């Protein structure tokens, strides 16, 4: 998976979770708000009902217009409240409950209207009864009047208590008075009976009214209570939900993001480690490629870079090594060249005085030979020969230095290297026999004829083999091998089993006047001249030596001239 996708996934998860959480929270809050409205409505309704009931009581007590009016007003307010309840709230309450409530209220109102009528009727009847009572009192006299006054007392009681017992007493008193023969008394009885009916009806109505009122009250109270409980439950549920969501948010989010982060960070960390290693110069480490994301392609590029770097470093190291070798060779060659120039300069300057010594000594010898014998003639002659001998030695040195002893200009001819080696060996036969040395020739049969200077090459072979003969003990071994090295190069190696040359001396052996032989035995020029000749022929010479095992000279000669 790509890093971008991983990051998006991480963020996306949080955003999704937050959105879900937000949605739920919103829904819950909406529910609570609806419920709260209900509670509020329930509260208003309750208050209104309380007002209605206050005025109901007042009215029932005073039976006056004002209280009735107030009661009607509050009933109107209550109805308005009920009507204004929103449909969703009605749904919440339940449409049946709502309708029942409405019905109860209208029943209550009807009952009230009925009782108001009742009161009016009572008032009328009471007035009629009083009038009838007064009329009867004025008609009756004596015993009958007395009885009737008892009835009137019971009448007052009845109007006060309005109960069955008082009514029964009244009827009993009326019956025992036995005044029914009077038309007025009969009407009075009828009125009383009707009044009592109204009383009874009033009582019933009031009970009913109270019942209905209580019903309405308890209904609203229940509603209010239920809503409060619901709100409480919803709040608690919401809180729990939020808490769970929060926990999920933290735990799941942490886990997912940690996994994603690890998925991103682990390969980067690995990359960092390897980068450090590469920076420290270790190009061997490679990144394991997993998947297909940017990290993987980065890893592939990095690995390629590592390989390239390693290759580059290797070839660079090789180049530097070669450069060092080349430089060392150049330095060595330059050193030898300047030494050679100095030596040549000195040799030139010495030649003239040497020539004078030579001629003077020669003249002395000439004169001596023409002279008659005298006491020390022979001794003088020997002394002069000594001088001339030393002059000759000096001449050998200077001439060798200057390459005078033999020609040094190159004459290229088609020549057989093997033949040259054999000739040189033949030339040194005496010395070889004298020291009882074994010289083994390992001739490369496939060696082609080469184009080079036979005389100069023989000179070089001679110098080196002579050195080898000097180096080995009596009965020593010298191996001379020729072989073809590559299509352009022939190789001659001359190996002896002498004492070897110490390392510190080995690097000077091609310098002029450097010799390991005892004083007077070597000029220190043989190898120098050999070196110069090999250079002239476009080849080179090198020496390897191991103390106690011997020395090997390796000559490489171009098959075609390179100069």
């Amino acid at each position, binding site marked *: 998976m790509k890093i971008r996708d991983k990051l998006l996934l991480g963020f996306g998860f949080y955003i999704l979770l937050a959105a879900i959480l937000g949605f739920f929270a919103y829904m819950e809050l909406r529910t609570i708000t609806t419920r709260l409205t209900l509670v509020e409505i329930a509260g208003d309704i309750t208050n209104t009902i309380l007002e209605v009931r206050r005025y109901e009581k007042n009215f029932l007590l005073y039976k006056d217009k004002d209280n009735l009016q107030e009661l009607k007003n509050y009933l109107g307010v209550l109805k308005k409240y009920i009507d204004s309840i929103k449909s969703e709230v009605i749904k919440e309450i339940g449409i049946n409950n709502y309708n029942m409530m409405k019905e109860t209220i209208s029943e209550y109102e009807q009952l009230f209207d009925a009782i108001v009528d009742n009161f009016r009727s009572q008032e009328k009847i009471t007035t009629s009864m009083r009038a009838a009572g007064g009329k009867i009192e004025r008609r009756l006299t004596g015993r009958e009047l007395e009885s009737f006054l008892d009835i009137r007392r019971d009448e007052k009681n009845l109007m006060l208590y309005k109960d069955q017992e008082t009514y029964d007493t009244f009827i009993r008193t009326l019956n025992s008075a036995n005044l029914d023969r009077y038309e007025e008394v009969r009407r009075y009885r009828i009125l009383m009976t009707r009044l009592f009916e109204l009383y009874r009806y009033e009582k019933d109505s009031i009970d009913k009214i109270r019942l209905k009122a209580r019903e309405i009250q308890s209904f609203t109270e229940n509603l209010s209570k239920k809503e409060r409980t619901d709100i409480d439950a919803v709040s608690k549920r919401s809180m729990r939900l939020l808490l769970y969501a929060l926990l999920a948010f933290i735990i799941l989010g942490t886990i997912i993001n940690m996994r994603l982060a690890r998925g991103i960070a682990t390969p980067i960390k690995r990359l960092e480690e390897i980068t450090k290693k590469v920076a420290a110069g270790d190009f061997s480490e490679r990144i394991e490629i997993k998947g297909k994301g940017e990290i993987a392609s980065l890893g592939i590029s990095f690995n390629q870079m590592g390989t390239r770097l390693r290759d580059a470093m290797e070839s660079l190291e090789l180049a530097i090594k070669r450069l060092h070798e080349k430089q060392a060779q150049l330095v060595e060659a330059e050193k030898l060249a300047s030494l050679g120039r100095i030596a040549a300069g000195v040799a*030139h*300057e*010495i*030649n*003239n005085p*040497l*020539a*004078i*010594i*030579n*001629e*003077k000594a*020669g*003249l002395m010898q*000439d004169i001596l030979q*023409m002279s008659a014998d005298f006491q020390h003639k022979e001794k003088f002659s020997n002394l002069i020969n000594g001088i001339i001998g030393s*002059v000759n030695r*000096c*001449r050998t040195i200077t*001439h060798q230095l*200057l*390459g*005078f002893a033999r*020609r*040094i*200009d190159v004459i290229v001819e088609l020549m057989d290297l093997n033949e040259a080696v054999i000739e040189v060996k033949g030339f040194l036969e005496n010395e070889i026999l004298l020291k009882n040395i074994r010289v083994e020739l390992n001739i490369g049969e496939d060696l082609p004829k080469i184009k080079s200077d036979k005389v100069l090459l023989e000179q070089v072979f001679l110098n080196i083999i002579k050195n080898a003969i000097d180096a080995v003990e009596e009965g020593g071994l010298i191996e001379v091998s020729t072989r073809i090295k590559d299509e352009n190069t022939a190789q001659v190696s001359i190996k002896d089993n002498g004492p070897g040359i110490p390392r510190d001396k080995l690097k000077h052996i091609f310098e002029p006047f450097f010799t390991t032989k005892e004083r007077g035995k070597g000029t220190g020029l043989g190898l120098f001249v050999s070196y110069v000749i090999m250079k002239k022929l476009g080849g080179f010479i090198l020496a390897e030596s191991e103390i106690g095992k011997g020395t090997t000279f390796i000559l490489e000669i171009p098959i075609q001239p390179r100069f």
Partner: protein
Amino acid sequence: MKKKKEIKVLLVDDEVDFVDTLAQRLKMRELMVATVYDGEQALSFIKKIEPDVIVLDLKMPGLHGMEVLREIKQLSPHIQVIILTGHGTEKDEEEAKRLGGFDFLRKPADIDLLVAKIKEAYWEKIERAMTAIAFAEEGELDTARKIIKKEE
């Protein structure tokens, strides 16, 4: 055959000590020897007396030996010149050969070798002069005839 004594040798070298000593030694070996100490002297000498062989140094004050050789070969091509020097390089040797020098020897040189070379050079001169006569029309090669006459 002429006597050896009559081979005329001119030594040209600025090293007086060397050239005088060498002259003595050559005289002892029955050669006619004259010495001069620089190139100019050498050239004016051969205009008066023509030597058979000249032994010539290269590095001298004034005219360089190589110049002297060139002049000599122009004046008298038959005179044989042996270079005897302590400074010669291979290039000098080539140059000398190219200019018609007879041989190129390095100091210090063995007296017997030098004498031998002088004699060779002398015979070379005679031979060349004779060849020149043989190929020459009558009276055309005065120099050659003169030489032959003299030799006779």
